[in-house]
C-alpha cells in the first residue's frame, strides 16, 4: 500500500516549520509499513491533483503569498474538483487564507482566493502571536499562531475548532480554522501534526479510505512522547 503526499509550494510557503506536517504524515505511514511518496509542487509546475492522497501547504512571507495567489488561481478549478472528490487537504496560515474567498489588505487591495472555504480575511495592524490550544472533534490541538490577517467565517462554515487559549481566526469569534469535506485550514504552526498525532491519523485515515476503501486500517502507534510534548506546550505562556 502507498499514499501520495503532495507538498504544495514547499519553497515559497514554508517559513514556520510547516514541513513538519509532511514529515509527520510520511513517518506515521512508514511506521505502519505503508509507503509514503512525497511530491513537491512549485509555482508553475503542472500537477494532476487526482494523483494526490493528501495535499499539504504552509505559510509564507507576504511576497511569496502574492506569487502563490496568482498560481492558485490557475489551479482553482482542479483544486475545487479534488476537494469535491474527497482528496484530503491541509492548508496552514497563508495558504489557508487563500483557500477562502479573498484577502483584503489594510489599504483595501484585494487578493482573490479560490473559495474552497466560505471565509474571508482582512489584513490587520497587530500580529496575533503566541501559543494556542483548540478544542476539536478530534480532541485538543496545540500549536503556535503568528498572523496579522483576521479571518471571518461565512454563515454555516464549519470551523476546525473553538479556541481555549490564544486568538484563532480573529480576536472576536473564538473559532479557529475551517473544514469543508476533507479539506482543513488552520493558523496553527508548531508544526501542527507532529504534536497532534490523533489529528494527523484522522487525515491519514480519510486518505486511506478514499484510496483503498473502507476496510483499510491504520494500526496503533506509541504516541507517548508526542502527547507529553503537546501537554507541555499547552502550559507555555
Amino acid at each position, binding site marked *: 500500500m502507498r499514499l501520495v503526499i503532495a507538498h504544495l509550494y*514547499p*519553497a515559497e510557503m*514554508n*517559513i*514556520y*516549520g*510547516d*514541513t*513538519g506536517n509532511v*514529515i*509527520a504524515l510520511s*513517518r506515521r505511514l512508514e511506521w505502519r509499513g505503508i509507503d509514503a511518496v512525497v511530491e*513537491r509542487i512549485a509555482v508553475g509546475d503542472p500537477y494532476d491533483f487526482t494523483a494526490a492522497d493528501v495535499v499539504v501547504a504552509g505559510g509564507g*512571507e*507576504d*511576497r511569496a503569498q502574492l506569487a502563490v495567489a496568482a498560481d492558485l488561481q490557475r489551479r482553482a478549478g482542479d483544486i475545487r474538483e479534488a476537494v469535491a472528490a474527497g482528496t484530503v487537504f491541509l492548508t496552514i496560515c497563508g495558504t489557508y487564507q487563500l483557500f477562502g474567498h479573498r484577502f483584503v489588505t489594510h489599504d483595501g487591495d484585494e487578493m482573490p482566493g479560490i473559495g474552497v472555504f466560505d471565509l474571508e480575511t482582512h489584513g490587520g495592524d497587530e500580529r496575533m*502571536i*503566541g*501559543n494556542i490550544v483548540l478544542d476539536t472533534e478530534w480532541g485538543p490541538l496545540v500549536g*503556535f499562531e*503568528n498572523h496579522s490577517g483576521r479571518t471571518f467565517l461565512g454563515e454555516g462554515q464549519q470551523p476546525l475548532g473553538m479556541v481555549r487559549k490564544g486568538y484563532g481566526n480573529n480576536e472576536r469569534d473564538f473559532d479557529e480554522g475551517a473544514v469543508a469535506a476533507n479539506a482543513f485550514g488552520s493558523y496553527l*504552526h*508548531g*508544526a501542527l501534526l*507532529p*504534536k497532534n498525532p490523533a489529528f494527523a491519523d484522522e487525515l491519514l485515515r480519510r486518505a486511506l479510505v478514499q484510496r483503498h476503501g473502507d476496510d483499510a486500517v491504520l494500526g496503533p502507534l506509541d504516541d507517548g*512522547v*508526542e502527547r*507529553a*510534548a503537546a501537554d*507541555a*506546550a499547552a502550559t*507555555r505562556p
Partner: protein
Amino acid sequence: MLRLQIAIAAGRLAGRASQLLGRGGSAVPGLVAERIDPRLIDRLVASIPRVVVVTGTNGKTTTTKLLVGMLESAGRRVVTNPTGSNLARGVATRLIEVARRGRVDTDIAVFEVDEAAVRALGPRLRPAVTVVTNLARDQLDRYGELDTTAAHVRSALEHAAIAVLNADDPMVAGLAGTAGADRFFGGSDPVRAQMPDDRTLYGDAGGPRPGPEPSVLVRAAEPAGEGQRAALTVDGEDLEVRLLLPGVYNAYNAAAAVAAATALGVEAAVAAGAAAGVVPAWGRGQTVEYRGRRVRLLLVKNPAGFNQAIRLLAGEEPGAQVMISINDHTADGRDVSWLWDARVEDLAGTGHRFVTSGTRALDMAVRLKYAGAAAEWAEPDPRTALDRFVDGVAAGGTATLVPTYTAMLDLLHLLQPDTHRREAWT
C-alpha cells in the same frame, strides 16, 4: 557637553547600583544615559577615528571577536561591545565605560549590532566598514520576515563607506552597490556546498554563486583538534589560518574578519596569524571542564545555525554524546516551529546518542523521533538534565551541548558557577 557629562555620570552610577544589587546587566548604564542624552552615542562616536559594524543573522559575535584580535595584533587600540549586548544600549554602555572627558580615546571601535537595530544605529555610527555575515530566517515572532530584516540592513549600508559582504548568500550579495564600495568574501565550490544559504534551506536547489568572485576566498577547511585549518586566498595571496573554532561556518566568519581587517589596512598575513589566538566566544564552540569531562557548547538560534551544528556533529566519529537544550523564552523565540526546518534527519545513523532538555525538551524529543534519531530521555529542568547527562559520559570523555540562547545561559551558569554572568540578553 554638560548634558553628555551628566548622562555619562548617571549611566555609570546606575551601572554600579545594578551590580551592587547583583543584577549584572550590561544594558543598564546605556539605557539610563541615553534617556538623559539621546545623542550620547553620536557625540561619543564622533571622537573615534573609525567605526566598524558587524551585523547579520549568524556569526556576529565570533566575527567581531576575530576582527578585534586581528586589529589588536596590528597594534591598533580597539573598543568593542561585550558579547551579545548588541542593541543601542549595549553600544552606549561600552562607550560610557571607556569615555574620558566626553571623548573616547581609541584607534577604532568594532561593534556587533543586532540586524533589526542596525537600521537606527547605522546613520549614528557612520561606519568605515560594515560586515554582513549572512541573512537567514530567525525567530519570526521577534524579527518578522526576512525581507524586512534585509531592508533594515540595506538602509544601514547607505551610511557605510565600505560593505564587507557574503558573496555566497543571495540575500547579502543582493545588498551590493548600497555602501560606498563593496568587498566580498566567500567559499570555493566544495566549501560553499557545506554552507547552505536560506534559500537552499527552504527547498531551492543550490546554483552558481549569487555574488561576484570574492576577494577573500575560503579554498578549503579541515577539522584540526577542537578547531580547524582553513586555506584562504586573500587578494590573490594564499594563506593558511588555524582556528580554535570548529565548523565551516567559522571559516566563513574568519574570511569575513580578514576581509574587514585588510580593508582597514591590516596586512593579510598579520590578520590570518591573529585568528589562531582567538578563543571561542561564550557558548560558540567553547569547551569547558566540568566534573572531569570536557563539555563543548554549540549555540543554535535558528534553522541555519542549527544546520551548521548538525553538519559538524554528523561529520564526527560515531558515539558522540549530545544534549540538545531548547528553551522558548523571548530571547530564544517563543515559537519552536523552526526545529522542523532544520535538517535533523542528518543525525540519523550517525551512531551518536541524544538526550534533550529545556522548556521545550519534549518538542525536541519529538523532532528527533521523527528524524530517526530518537532521544534516550527528555528532562526540562537544566540542573537535573545536565547532571544526568554528564553522569552518562565517561570520566575524561567529551560531551556536546547544543543549546538555544537562554538554555546556554542556564547551562553555563551551572558549568561555571563562579563566573560572573557577563553576557545578558538586552
